[in-house]
């Protein structure tokens, strides 16, 4: 039977004992762990009760467990502590036990056994023992407080780390020239910030996985997600689904469930990757646009070299032309080329389409045209050959409408061929117009020797010829009304008869611009005007 003894701690302590207690408290407080504290308590008690055996026990649940040297191989029966004060009990065989409740609700028990044939423990010994246990309790409270403080600091630092890493990762994944793909970096960061054991990113299209990357590298760890479950998030971009999954949140005490913060972090990192991919896409698009603009600038430069800077002077005639492309590179062409036999070839052409492909086709057209003119081919043969080579040089949707006129200046003789082009207006001196449109199909429309017809006429004094592309009659204003609808070109040609060809061109362009106003020009505008003095 245990005999319980209540001890009055208010009794006066022997001289020098206070100092011993202070020293003991310092010793106990300096211990970094409970085990170390227990070892130190055993040493302190061993020093205070020399020759006695000190055994320490701890109870965290129902059972007592040894914390060090025991009297024998068994754990003795120890009472539970009542309240916060130490409970001292006398045990059988001259032993004494003391039990103290600790700050973490566990209990520590000390069993002292007199060594040799020592006297039984006096009441003052029991008071001292109780004081030592109270000191131990206080030292343990300090230890717990220090541990809690460290855990709090660690936790706060970790939160700062998470926020900082979130910002850094956002910056890194948004770097367009980063060495690692942004989604791989984000997976790494998400795993480390949430203490996940592993993670995976799957990119799938139409339910089929196109890319799979594990963290750590090396494929799915055995039993990933089976111990502590996982969290996931996903987004869609460019027809693909990016899905991030994290598995098995680690802690020092084993695998624990992921919490809301982990999900928030994963979602945030996933959103950063999404934004980064969108930015990368827009950046690439801008680069492509820039490259196209550079190509267009080069093509425009070539185009400008093809179009005539000035037109040749023709004795007894005045000639002027204009080309206003709707984009940087146009699909219109005009020229007046002097031929070795004294004749002049007036040409106007319009490629279906605009931009670089149209400019390239114009360039081919110009090269073939000049070659065939030098070969002095009859105009209809020239058209047949041009039709064939343009058909072979262009795609199916590309063709050229053109009008050719060979002028013999001395006689005013004019031979014309239209390859599906707008009718050319010949203005007689009385103001009446004749439309010249005989010829054949547009060039390049059919890859065959399609026959062309020509018509011949003689220009009289004061007669005028206007060659133009459809950019003039089809010019539109802000309400998409056609210039031709309100101001028929024929009427303009009939009514305007300035002395100089250049004046006519200026007036025509001014009239068109007056009609269209600030509306964007949607087609190239090209015209060639000849008048015979």
């Amino acid at each position, binding site marked *: 039977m245990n005999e319980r003894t209540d001890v009055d701690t208010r009794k006066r302590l022997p001289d020098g004992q206070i100092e011993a207690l202070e020293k003991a408290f310092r010793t106990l407080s300096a211990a970094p762990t409970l085990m170390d504290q227990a070892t130190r308590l055993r040493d302190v008690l061993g020093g205070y009760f020399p020759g006695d055996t000190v055994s320490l026990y701890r109870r965290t649940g129902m059972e007592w467990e040894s914390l060090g040297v025991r009297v024998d191989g068994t754990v003795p029966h120890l009472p539970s502590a009542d309240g916060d004060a130490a409970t001292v009990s006398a045990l059988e065989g001259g032993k004494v036990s003391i039990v103290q409740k600790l700050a973490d609700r566990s209990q520590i028990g000390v069993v002292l056994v007199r060594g040799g044939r020592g006297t039984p423990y006096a009441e003052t010994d029991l008071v001292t023992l109780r004081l030592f246990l109270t000191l131990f309790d206080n030292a343990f409270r300090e230890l717990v407080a220090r541990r809690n403080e460290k855990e709090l600091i*660690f936790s706060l630092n970790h939160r700062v780390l998470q926020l900082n890493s979130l910002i850094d990762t956002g910056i890194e994944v948004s770097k367009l020239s980063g060495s690692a793909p942004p989604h791989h970096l984000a997976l790494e960061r998400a795993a480390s910030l949430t203490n996940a054991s592993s993670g995976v990113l799957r990119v799938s299209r139409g339910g089929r996985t196109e890319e799979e990357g594990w963290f750590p*590298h090396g494929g799915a760890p055995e039993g990933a997600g089976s111990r502590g479950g996982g969290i996931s998030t996903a987004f869609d971009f460019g027809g693909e689904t990016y899905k991030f999954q994290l598995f098995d949140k680690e802690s*020092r005490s084993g695998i624990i469930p992921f919490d809301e913060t982990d999900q928030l972090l994963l979602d945030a990192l996933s959103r950063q990757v999404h934004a980064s991919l969108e930015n990368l896409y827009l950046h690439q698009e801008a680069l492509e646009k820039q490259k196209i603009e550079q190509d267009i600038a080069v093509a425009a430069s070539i185009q400008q070299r093809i179009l005539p800077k000035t037109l040749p002077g023709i004795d007894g005639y005045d000639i002027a032309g204009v080309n206003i492309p709707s984009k940087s590179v146009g699909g219109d062409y005009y020229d007046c080329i002097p031929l070795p036999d004294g004749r002049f070839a007036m040409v106007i052409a319009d490629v279906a389409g605009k931009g670089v492909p149209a400019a390239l086709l114009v360039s081919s057209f110009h090269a073939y045209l000049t070659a065939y003119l030098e070969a002095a081919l009859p105009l209809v043969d020239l058209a047949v050959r041009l039709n064939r080579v343009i058909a072979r040089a262009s795609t199916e949707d590309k063709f050229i409408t053109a009008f050719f006129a060979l002028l013999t200046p001395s006689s005013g003789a004019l031979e014309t061929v239209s390859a599906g082009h707008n009718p050319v207006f010949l203005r007689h001196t009385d103001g009446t117009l004749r439309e010249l449109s005989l010829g054949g199909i547009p060039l390049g429309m059919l890859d065959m020797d399609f026959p062309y017809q020509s018509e011949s006429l003689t220009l009289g004094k004061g007669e005028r010829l206007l060659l133009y592309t459809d950019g003039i009659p089809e010019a539109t204003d802000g309400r998409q009304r056609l210039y031709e609808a309100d101001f028929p070109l024929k009427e303009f040609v009939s009514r305007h008869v300035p002395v100089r060809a250049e004046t006519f061109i200026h007036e025509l362009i001014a009239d068109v611009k007056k009609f269209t106003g600030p509306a964007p020009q949607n087609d190239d505008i090209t015209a060639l005007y000849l008048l015979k003095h």
Partner: protein
Amino acid sequence: MEQPFSLTSEVRENRLIITTSGYVNNVGGEAIAAEFARHFEQGTRHIVINLGQSRVVNSVGMSFLIEIIERLQDAGGKLVFTDLDPAVEKMLSIMGLFQYAGKEKTVGDALLSFHEAGKPGP
């Protein structure tokens, strides 16, 4: 992408040099702590941890590193990290590890720092 964890160690002039590779997580931290403890019990008090091949460290892994630092502090020893990836260096800095542990560019620099500090190996 980061590799699974592994480590190697060597003792030079009674200084323990642990070189890690891969994710320093619970598994990695335990392995480092076990390797440290084995040598600590034999009296080694100056430790170099080369994290050059570890670009990712989680907080569980860091808690093991902090314990090592604390044990060395109590025993008058010192830990120096080397070959740190900038991201890892920032992590350890935010977590306050460099208040009590050193960092050097290379293992050679770390060993030299022990000499300069006038702390020859025990």
